[in-house]
Each structure stands twice: as C-alpha cells, then as structure tokens.
C-alpha cells in the first residue's frame, strides 16, 4: 500500500509542477496576447474594455505575480480556465467541453477496440506460432510501419474525395442538429468510420506484435510445460497460464495509452478535420489562443497522470508479486 501512496504522491507533485509551469509559460512568452486580440478587433475596443480584458486573462500588471498565482489556483479549482480568444467571450472550459466528447468517443472507442482485437490476435499468433498464424506477422509488421499521416491522406483520397462513400472532414453533417437522435448519431458514426478504421489499422499491429512476443517468452516458462504435463486443455493453458501472464505488460501499456487518447490524436483530427480536442489545439496554436492552449495542455497532462495511476493500480491488481512489496 505504501507503494501506492508513494506513487500518488509522485503524481500529485507532477501535477502541481505541470500546473505551475502552465501558469508561468504564457507570462514568459514575448508579445502580449491581449494586444493581438485588440489588433484583431481593429480599434473597436475602448480603453476600459482593454483593461478588463487584461484582468480577464489574468495578465493584470497591477497585481503581483504571487497573488496572480493564487488567483490562478482558485480559478482552476472552480473549473475556470479563463476565456478563449478565438471563441471570445466563451470560457475555455466550454470550448473544451464541446470538443472533448468527440475525441473521447472516437479515439477512446478505437483505442479499446484496438487493444482488445490486437491482444486477442497476438495471443493466437503467439500460441500457434509455426503454423498458418505466422502469416499474420509480415502483414502486421507492414501495417505498423505505415506513417499515420500518409495512411489518413490515402484513405481520404480513396474513400472520401470526389463523391466517395465517406465524408472527409467534420464530425457530423452540417444539415443535422446535434442531439441524441438517430439522425445525428448515424451521421456522427458515418463521419467517424474512416478515421476510426485508419487508427485501428495503424495502432492494432503494435498490440499484436507485443502480445505475440510476450506469448513466445511466456511459452518457454516452466509453468507452461507443467500445465501441459498436468493434462489441462489447450484452451486452459493458453488462456489461464500463457495469456494471463503475457498480458501483464500489455495491460499497463494499455492504461498508459488511455492517457494519450486526449493528447495523441492531433494527427488524426487534423487529417480528418475532426472536431475533437486535438484539432482544437491545432487551431488554437494557429490563432495564438493562449488560454485555450493552456487549458488543453492542462487536460492532456492530467489525463496522462491519471492513466499512469490507473496503470499502477491495474498492475497491482493483476500481478500478485507487486502487491506485498515496498
């Protein structure tokens, strides 16, 4: 247990450091975000309005850095991430709340499917090595070496452009109104199929390869031979002895990959102009929308940390050897 407490302490410290850096970074950036907003408003803002903007963005010179820092924490804890420049006057938290579900649905779902399918294929490929299952390997190795960007563009060219069966951008048809009805859900699924399939193709092979390797390693263990000698069924040996042990490293890798759902989807969402958080970050960088960038970074950092914690917990749960230690 003290092991877990130490890990939690470590993650809390990392979170604090990330949040603090997040506070200082924009203040260290040369140039003034409010100036760029003023420039964009083309002189339509009064001096009063400008001053209130500075205060709004937390860039108020009249306050000391220390009190700004504490105020920043106070805002964070109440879920206030400031106002977005590009979507002014929408708060950053609203912008994120709008785009996060898209990412979670598309990438979260495909990450889980990719892990489950890839791991199952890896188990089979590892267990039946030296048979037809070996044919799977050159294919998977090839797929895992394809750069995502390239695959995405090919997919759009082949299946989306010039009256192809799939849309090449967006999360749903402009014609439908977002809501929990069949029209909208159908349209959303239609839009997400192509990106989902491309993610699956490139990410699944990683799980296949690592699971197969672990299966091969575990197959040489004495306890597998014992399991055969005991006359247990092939199925029982494969699942309960080989796969159960081979799964350990893959499961913690999976927990970590959950943390990358939020941050690791930039490429997918850019290629498919998908209205998720990665695409939002991409646009925010282009628009120098500092509060939004900050907010998204914060979400990414926190989700990676939470995923790490989950990985630790899962390992603790699956591997009895880690339970008593430390």
């Amino acid at each position: 247990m003290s092991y877990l407490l130490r890990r939690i302490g470590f993650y809390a410290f990392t979170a604090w450091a990330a949040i603090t850096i997040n506070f200082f970074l924009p203040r260290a950036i040369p140039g003034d975000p409010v100036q760029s907003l003023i420039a964009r408003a083309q002189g339509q803002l009064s001096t009063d309005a400008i001053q209130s903007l500075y205060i709004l963005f937390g860039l108020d010179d009249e306050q000391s850095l220390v009190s700004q820092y504490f105020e920043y924490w106070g805002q964070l804890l109440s879920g206030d991430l400031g106002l977005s420049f590009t979507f002014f006057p929408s708060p950053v938290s609203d912008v994120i709340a709008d785009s996060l579900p898209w990412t979670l649905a598309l990438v979260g779902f495909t990450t889980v499917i990719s892990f489950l399918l890839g791991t199952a294929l890896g188990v089979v490929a590892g267990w039946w090595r030296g048979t037809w299952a070996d044919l799977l390997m050159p294919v998977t190795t090839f797929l895992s070496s394809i750069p995502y960007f390239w695959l995405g563009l090919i997919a759009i060219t082949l299946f989306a452009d010039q009256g192809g069966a799939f849309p090449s951008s967006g999360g749903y048809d402009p014609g439908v109104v977002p809501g929990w009805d069949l029209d909208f859900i159908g349209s959303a699924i239609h839009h997400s199929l192509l990106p989902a399939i491309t993610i699956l193709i490139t990410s699944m092979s990683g799980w296949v390869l690592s699971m197969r390797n672990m299966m091969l390693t575990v197959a040489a263990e004495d306890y597998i031979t014992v399991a055969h000698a005991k006359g247990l069924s092939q199925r029982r040996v494969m699942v309960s002895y080989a796969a159960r042990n081979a799964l350990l490293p893959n499961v913690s890798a999976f927990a970590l990959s959950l943390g990358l759902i939020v941050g690791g989807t930039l490429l997918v969402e850019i290629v498919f102009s998908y209205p998720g958080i990665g695409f939002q970050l991409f646009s925010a960088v282009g628009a120098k929308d500092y509060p939004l960038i900050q907010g998204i970074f914060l979400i990414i950092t926190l989700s990676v940390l939470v995923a790490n914690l989950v990985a630790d917990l899962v390992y603790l749960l699956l591997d009895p050897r880690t339970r008593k230690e430390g």
Partner: protein
Amino acid sequence: MSGEPVLDIRGLSVDYGLGDAAVHAVRDVSLTLHRGEVLGLAGESGSGKSTLAYGMLRLLPPPGVVRSGQVFYHPGDDEPVELMSLSAKRLRRFRWAEVAIVFQGAMNSLNPVHTVATQLTDVIAAHEPRTTPAARRARAVELLTLVGINADRLGSFPHQLSGGMRQRVMIAMALALEPRVVVMDEPTTALDVVMQRQILAKLVELRERIGFSVLFITHDLSLLVEFSDRIAIMYGGRIVEDAPAGQLYRDSLHPYSDGLLHSFPALRGPRRELTGIPGSPPDLRAMPSGCAFHPRCPKAFDPCAERTPTLLAPDGREDQNRTVACWLHTADRAMT
C-alpha cells in the same frame, strides 16, 4: 521389490532439430521402471536425462522431436498403452493421472499469478470434472498436509513461499491424482543439502505409504545410492550401466560409473577418494567414434574407439540382473 514393469521405454531416440542439423540428445535408450521401485537416472549435466524424461511424456519443447522408439505404460489390470501413438485427447487424460512429473526448474514450475489452491485444484478439475469445488479444495488441503505444509498456505501466491515449500507444493501437486509413476527431474538441485534430504526422505515415506514408482533424475549419484532401488547411468545420450543400487555402489562395472561415484562425497559408508572424471562431456554434434566415453576412459583399449558397445549382461554375471555397455565386460559375446 521389482515386480512387473509400469513404464517400459524401448529404443527411444530424441533429436533437437531436423535433418543434418539435428543433435541426437537421446540415443536408442531402453529402460524399465518396475512397480513400487525408485529408479535413479544419473549422469553429468548434458547427458540427456531431462530430454529422456520429456521425450517419453511427449513434452519436448521445440525443436525437440522423438525420432524413434516406443514407451509402454502398464496400467496393471488393463492392456498396456503405447504413449508415442496415443491420440492428443487420450494423451491429455493420461498425463498426470498416470504419470506426474516434478521438473528440474521446480522453482519456476508454479504460475506466479495463481494461488497454490488454484494450481492444485485445476488439475483435479481437468481430470475429474464431476468433483465439486469444495471437494477439490478439501483434497488440496489433504495434499498440502501430506507434504507437511499448513493448510493456510492454500491462498498464498508462489512468491510468498520459500524454495523448499514451492518444491513440496510441486510434490503435493504430483500426487494429486494418485499416479502410478512420479518422475522427478533434479527436484532438489536448487535447494540446500539439508532441505534436499528432508524432501527426499518425505518422498520415500510417501512412496511407502501411497505406493507409486519413482523415476528419480539427478547428476548427484550419492543421493541415488541412498534413496533408490536401481540406478541407470547415462552418458552422451545412452544408458551405459543399469544395476541394483547396492551393486552399482559396491561394484560398478563401467569406468564412467566409477568416475561418477568418485565425483561426489558419499554421505554414508566409507569415505571415497574424490577424483572426479578428467576431461569434459562429449559434444553431441561431434561424438567420438565407438564408445563415446573412450577419450576420457582410463581403461580404454583396442575396440573402444572403433565399435559402440551395446547394453548387455556383463560376462560371467548373467544372473545379477544388471547390464553394462562396455567392452571390458561384454567382449565375449559382442565380438561374435
């Protein structure tokens, strides 16, 4: 003690790899284990003892293959079964129920992610599917008690047990289905001498109580002299001598057996001078011609380098129930 045979190995040859690259690790081995007997199999490391044990139970890891030979199991009342030709399904039912094995790597023989209870009961469930979970658990408790482990260890994971305990759990597991034969492949090498003796004493006691036969494999001949009824000596993949334990100890015939006896301190009886065997075990890829031991043999003479001796009753001792593969003792008949 030696009644009818339980396990009869006939001309078993095992290779690692195929074709020209194959290493012949076990060569034409014939060996018989009798009912109620402890048969010791000794030989330097690399002589093929484990390969023989794995091979006869069809447990060889790739690239191991049984090239030829037969293994007959005699269930007592029924017809004997030939293991090499058994279907996968029948083989699975045969394993553990008739012949259980405690492996050389017994330290790693337990699955680290399952409890002792799970691993003791899953074998019962596999072979006796109609037993209830409660009955299986009760049997597991019984088995642990048998090997001197407290029942509260049932919920333990392997890493929570000491080496000696894990070893005894494996012995308990081997006895779970009351097999007629238990194969032990260097079950105690990783343990200290005191623990080795404790476990072996336990084993002998259990054998007397339950009545199974043991094929005991070790490179430590002095252990066998103490605990076994018969001893077979293996060298370069062949059995070179097979004799009752006492005879082998007092009056070994093969110079290699003699060398082995002088490689370990005897724990009882008169002290012997420890001389060991000069030279090193043969390279299986480049076996010497004739008798594989001749380059290291202090008594080698003319025929040894040219012709391979066969395992036969030694000259003038045809009544002694022993065999040896050595030109010194089988010259008369093998020449003709």
